[in-house]
């Protein structure tokens, strides 16, 4: 099939500037929305995916496998596990076994402030820094026990909706009716930890008046132990009421938990895109209808309807591609890395290749889908009919 010159499609764009402007604008709007939605979904998924270390196992209280914050575990569990479970990684004899308390508390800048934001506070021992290698202290130091000191994650300010200086080292935060001094800042890129507050395990237990743990996280030495061993141990030690989960599995569960949210977001973006398609249909229909005779003439010359269709799609794609590209450029500049608050923590939007491709694809699809029905309608007319139009 011999096609019409590409020039023809390009110049047709100038023929109906309003339609061209609307399709460029519509495509960029839709592409931007899809980009935002996809960046949100990708950011959320990545933060859950990188939060897990491959050799880590989480021990939770039996019956609360979906939520660390709801789980309760006897305090002695950590010691029992460290002493009697084989296959745990050790360094200089120190086992990679981290007893942790996770609570979600309302955090404010002053004692009098009423409305704070719920934030995960994690009470840890020094072993936490062994089992969470992604975490790096970038400023200050580790909290000293008994001093009500805290370490804050890089994205905490975003999570709390505060300017970064309000959570800087030396500042005071308030939760559970007590002031806490920020003594350090850590970075754990992309993970849920990045928006948390860490403090000494016993300090947190004191203020929350609990003597149980939320979980015990341990790192296996892959040469000596595997998840099945830990699960067998948990099954034997009925007295401890433990359930062992691969950390990856735990986060996969969280990921699944948030799937409806992601679907809703993509669906919303999709519906708006559909609105774009419907709007585009009308514009394209009007634009093409005024060209009926010309398209009839092209067929008289010997051009096939397929060739004309290709040209109409090219024309539409040029405008939509321009719009979508602008949106992707803007989206990358404005959205990539942007912090989003979410119940599980704060995470950064991720605008990567796949996200850009999705947004571009949506913009281009809009061009094609919005062109086909009016083009079909016009090209289905017999030639004499088109010439008389």
């Amino acid at each position, binding site marked *: 099939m011999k096609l019409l*010159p590409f020039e023809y499609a390009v110049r047709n764009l100038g023929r109906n500037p309003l339609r061209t402007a609307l399709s460029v604008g519509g495509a960029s709007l839709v592409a931007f929305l899809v980009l935002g939605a996809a960046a949100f979904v990708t950011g959320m998924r990545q933060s859950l995916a990188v939060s897990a270390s491959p050799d880590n196992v989480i021990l939770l209280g039996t019956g609360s496998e979906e939520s660390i914050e709801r789980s309760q575990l006897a305090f002695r569990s950590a010691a029992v596990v460290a002493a009697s479970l084989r296959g745990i990684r050790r360094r200089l004899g120190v086992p990679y076994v981290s007893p942790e308390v996770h609570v979600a508390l309302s955090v404010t800048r002053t004692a009098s402030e009423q409305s704070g934001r719920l934030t995960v506070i994690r009470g840890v021992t020094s072993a936490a820094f062994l089992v969470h290698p992604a975490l790096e202290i970038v400023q200050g130091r580790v909290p000293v026990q008994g001093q009500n000191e805290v370490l804050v994650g890089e994205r905490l300010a975003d999570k709390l909706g505060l300017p970064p200086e309000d959570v800087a080292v030396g500042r005071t935060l308030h939760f559970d009716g007590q002031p806490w001094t920020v003594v350090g800042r850590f970075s754990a890129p992309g993970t849920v930890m990045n928006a948390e507050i860490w403090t000494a395990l016993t300090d947190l237990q004191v203020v929350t008046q609990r003597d149980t743990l939320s979980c015990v996280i341990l790192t296996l030495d892959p040469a000596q132990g595997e998840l099945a061993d830990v699960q067998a141990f948990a099954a034997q030690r009925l007295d401890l009421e433990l359930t062992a989960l691969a950390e990856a599995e735990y986060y996969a569960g969280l990921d699944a938990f948030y799937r409806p949210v992601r679907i809703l977001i993509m669906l919303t973006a999709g519906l708006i895109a559909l609105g774009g398609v419907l709007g585009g249909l009308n514009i394209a229909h009007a634009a093409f209808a005024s060209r009926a005779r010309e398209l009839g003439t092209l*067929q008289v010359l010997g051009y096939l309807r397929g060739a004309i269709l290709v040209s109409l799609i090219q024309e539409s794609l040029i405008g939509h591609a321009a719009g979508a590209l602008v949106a992707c450029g803007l989206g990358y500049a404005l959205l990539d890395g942007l912090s989003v608050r979410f119940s599980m923590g704060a995470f950064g939007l991720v605008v990567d290749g796949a996200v850009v491709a999705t947004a571009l694809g949506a913009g281009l699809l809009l061009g094609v889908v919005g062109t086909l029905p009016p083009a079909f309608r016009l090209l289905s007319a017999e030639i004499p009919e088109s010439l008389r139009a």
Partner: protein
Amino acid sequence: MSFVECRALERTYTRGDNTITPLRALDLEIEQGTFLALMGPSGSGKTTLLNLLAGIDRPSSGELRIDGQEITTLSRAALARWRSVAVGYVFQLYHLVPVLTAYENVELPLLLHDLSRKERHRRTALTLELVGLADRHDHYPRQLSGGQEQRVAIARALVTDPQLILADEPTGDLDAEAAKGIMTLLAALHRDLGKTLVMVTHDPKTATFADLTLHLEKGRLVSPATVGADAPAEGGA
């Protein structure tokens, strides 16, 4: 065998219970190299006949052979290919592509042929020269007068060197002077290039440029059915 042979050619339209027959059992033969004028009242089926001859419409029944090729049985794509080689069509309202220059409009049919860029250029330039527009290559249709636009349209119909040129009221939208220019051009194409021309017109003066005039009335021919450049008959019924 004549260049154009129509046998019991009929075109009917059915709309609901209504049947309209713009062309009724038409027999017509046209010898190669004839310049034929078709006249007749509005709605008599002139355009319908022209469209059938151009292969852009299909008869409801009957046979239509052009240069030995039965075109009523060709597939849609084959018919399109046939058109791109065998016919040139000139419209009353020129129907140039507004976003293409005069040169590009004329080149457009050539893009359907396997020709080198150089050969395309040669033919396009030559044809534009033939219609007297060698100096208007880069003009867009809106920058041309009606007469000039029609010349470009004629060049477009001519550039692939088809044997059959069809024109539907080619001067219908032009003032007397421009019309005369166009008719002089068409007559020259017929005389110098030996093209077979079928032209619809309302204007008897325009028809005098043709070798012969046929009249259509209510879808029927009311004049001799065999027409040739050397036929003795002249004029209508």
